[in-house]
C-alpha cells in the first residue's frame, strides 16, 4: 500500500443552509467509508477524522464555513474529489434540510 500512498487536499465551503448537521454528516461519513484512504477534515485548526460522524457534528460547521478535506491513501484523489462534490452539491439537501431524493 505504501508505494501507492497519495495525499490529496482540497478546500470546500459549506453551502447548505443548515450546515453540517446530522444527515449531511452521515452522508459524508458513509461516502468517506467507501474509500480506503484516511480522511481528515480541517476546520480553523481543528483536525478531525472524516469517517467519524461524532467528530463531524461537533465541528459545528455552519453555512459558509470553509473546510479543508485531506485524504491519505491509495485512493486519496478520488476520495477528495467525491467528498468535495458532495459538499458543493449541498449534500443533496433542500434548504429546509430535507433529502432531495428520498428514494436514493
Amino acid at each position, binding site marked *: 500500500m505504501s508505494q501507492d500512498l497519495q495525499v490529496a487536499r482540497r478546500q470546500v465551503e459549506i453551502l447548505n443552509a*443548515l*450546515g453540517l*448537521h*446530522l*444527515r449531511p*454528516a*452521515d452522508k459524508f*461519513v*458513509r461516502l468517506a467509508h467507501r474509500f480506503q484512504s484516511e480522511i481528515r477534515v480541517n476546520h480553523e485548526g481543528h483536525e*478531525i*477524522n472524516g*469517517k*467519524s*460522524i*461524532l*467528530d463531524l*457534528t*461537533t465541528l*459545528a460547521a*455552519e453555512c459558509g464555513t470553509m473546510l479543508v478535506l485531506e485524504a491519505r491513501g491509495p485512493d486519496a484523489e478520488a476520495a477528495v474529489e467525491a467528498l468535495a462534490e458532495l459538499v458543493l452539491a449541498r449534500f443533496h439537501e433542500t434548504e429546509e*434540510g*430535507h*433529502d432531495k431524493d*428520498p428514494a*436514493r
Partner: protein
Amino acid sequence: MTPTAAVGARRRARGRRTPGRTARGANRPGPPKSKTMHTLRGIAVSPGIAIGPVRVLDPRGLRPPLRAVSAEAVPAEYDRLDRALESARSEAEAAEAEARDRIGPQYADILGAHARMIDDPTLRRDARERIGRDLVSAEHAVSEVLEGHAARLAGMADTHLAARAADVRDIQRRILAQFLGPGTAPAPGDTDGPIVVLAHDLSPSETAGLDPARVLGFATESGGLASHTAIVAAALEIPAVVGLGRALDLARLSRSAIVDGDEGLVVLDPDPPTLDRYRRASVERTARFEGLADLAHLPAETLDGRAVRLWGNIEFPAEVDPCLDRGATGIGLYRTEFLFLNVDRPPTEDEQFAAYEAVVRSAGGRPVTFRTLDLGADKLVSYRNGHPPEPNPALGLRSLRLSLRDPDLFRTQLRAILRASALGDVRVMFPLVSTISEFRQARAILRAVAGELAAEGVAVPAGLPVGVMVEVPAAAVMADQLAKEVDFFSIGTNDLIQYTLAVDRTNETVAGLYSAADPSVLRLIALVVAAAEPRGLDVTVCGAMGGEPLYAPLLLGLGIRCLSMAPHQLPEIKRVIRAIRDDRARALAAEVLGLEGAPEVAERLREALIEAFPEAAAHALPGGPHDSRG
C-alpha cells in the same frame, strides 16, 4: 423524622433546583477538568442521610456505568466494548430498516445516522483509551465519551446541532442497554457494594426490590409527597427524595451522591466540606435514634395520662418485627397489594395465605388489620382483559369497587384472610368505601365466604371485626350512618386529602396544594370521631398524617386514640405523645378547626410543637444545622 426535622420539613421550598446549578451550566464545551458539586431539590419522603456511589436506573433498565476494573481485566473490557457496539449497531440498523418500511425516510435516516455513530471510530478509540488509562468499565467509558459529545453539542449556539445532543444520548442508551441485554453476562463486581440509586421513577415493586442492605438511599425525578413509592421507601427505612425534576443526565456523570431524606436534597459529587458536614450529621442522627430506641418499651401516654395506641403500617411480613421492635402494639394497616403486582396471574389462595400467616404469626397475638385489595383496574391489566383504560382512574374502577365487580378475586382473598384469622387477632377493613351499600355488599361476601369455609370444616373464629377505611369525603360525611354497622373506622388520610382537595398527590405541578393541615380535612376527621365516640368505636388514622410529629397533638386533640404509621416513625411519635397534655391538645384542635386555611393551621401546629420541644426551635430556623441549601 424528628420533631426538629418535621418543623424543618414544613418550611421546605418546592423549587426544582438550586439556582445557578443546572445540568446545562455544567456542560460547557470541553471535558470538565474536575467534578463539580450539584445540589438538586426534591421532596423528602423517607428520612435519613445516604452517602455513596451513584447508580442510575433508567426506564430501560440501564445501570450507571462507574465501575473500576483491574489492569488485567482491560482486554476483557475491550471485548465487552466491541460486543456491545456491534450489537447496538445491528440493532440500530434493524431499526433503520424497519423505519424505512413503516415510517419513512426522514426518521430512518436518523436511525441510520445513529448506527454510524455507534460504529464511530472516534467513539471506539476514545472509549478504549479511557478503559486503558482510567481502568474503568466499558460502559462507563462509553458513557463518559458520549456524554462529552452530547455536552459539547448541547452547548452550541446552532439549535439544529444543539438538538443532536438528544441523538447522542439516545445511542448512549442503546449501547449501554447492550451491556445488560440477554447474552451479556452481568459485569463482575457490578453487584458489589452499597449504592445510591437515582431513577426517573420506581414502581412500588421495583422499590421493594431494592435491597436495603445495598441501597443506601434513592431519589427519583418524578413523584409527589405521598406516592406509593414514597410509602414503600419509608417502610423499608431507606432515605428517599422524589420529584427532583430532570436529574438523570447529570447523575450519569456523577460518581457519588448524598440523598438527604430529611431536607429533600440530592447532592451530586459533593465537595469535601459538604461531604464532611453530611458525614457528621449522619453520625449525630444515628446517635439520636439510638436514644429514641429506649422509648420503645415506655407507654405511649400523654403527660396527663391519656393512653394512645401506636400501631405499625406494613406491606411485607418482614416488616412486622421492625414495628414490634419500636414498640408498636399492633398492625393498623396491612397492605395486601404486593402479591398482585407485576404477576401474570392473580396469586392463589394458598400463596396469599402463606404471606398472611407469616404476618399474623409474627404479630404474636397482637391485632393485625388487613386492608383488602386496594388496586386500580390498570394495575391488574396484565392478567385481566375487558377493563378498557379509564380516563380518570382515581375516580374509576379501583379498590373495593374492583373487588365487588370481580367476586372471584375478592372471595379468594377473603378466604385467605379468614384462614389466617384463626392464627391470631385479625381485623378486616375495606378501602375506598363511598356508600353504606358498598360496605354491606362487601360484608355479605365476607360472611358468605366464612360460611363456605365453615362448611368445609375450616376453623374460622366468629366475630371478626369488620371496618371501613374513610378515604372518600362521602364516607366521612355519612359516618354517623356507617357507625351503626361497622366495627371500627380507619382514616386513610392520603386519599381523603386527595379527594377532599381534588389534588393528585403524585402530580408535581399541584402537589403543593396537597395539605393535611387543610381545615376541610380536619373537619371531616372530626365528623368521623363524633360519629364513632357515642358507640365506642375505634378510629385509627393510618395515612401518612398519622406518622408526622406535627400532626400528632392535633389528631390526639381531635379524639383519635390510635395512630398507625411506618415503623421508623413510631419512636418519634411516641416522644411527642409523651411530651404533650391531652387537655392542651383538645384546646389546640378546637382552635385550629376554626382557622381559615392550611397555612394558618400549619403555623399554629408548628408553634404548638415548638412549645412542647423548645430545643427544636433553634433548628427550625433557616441556617440551622440541617439547613444545607447552598
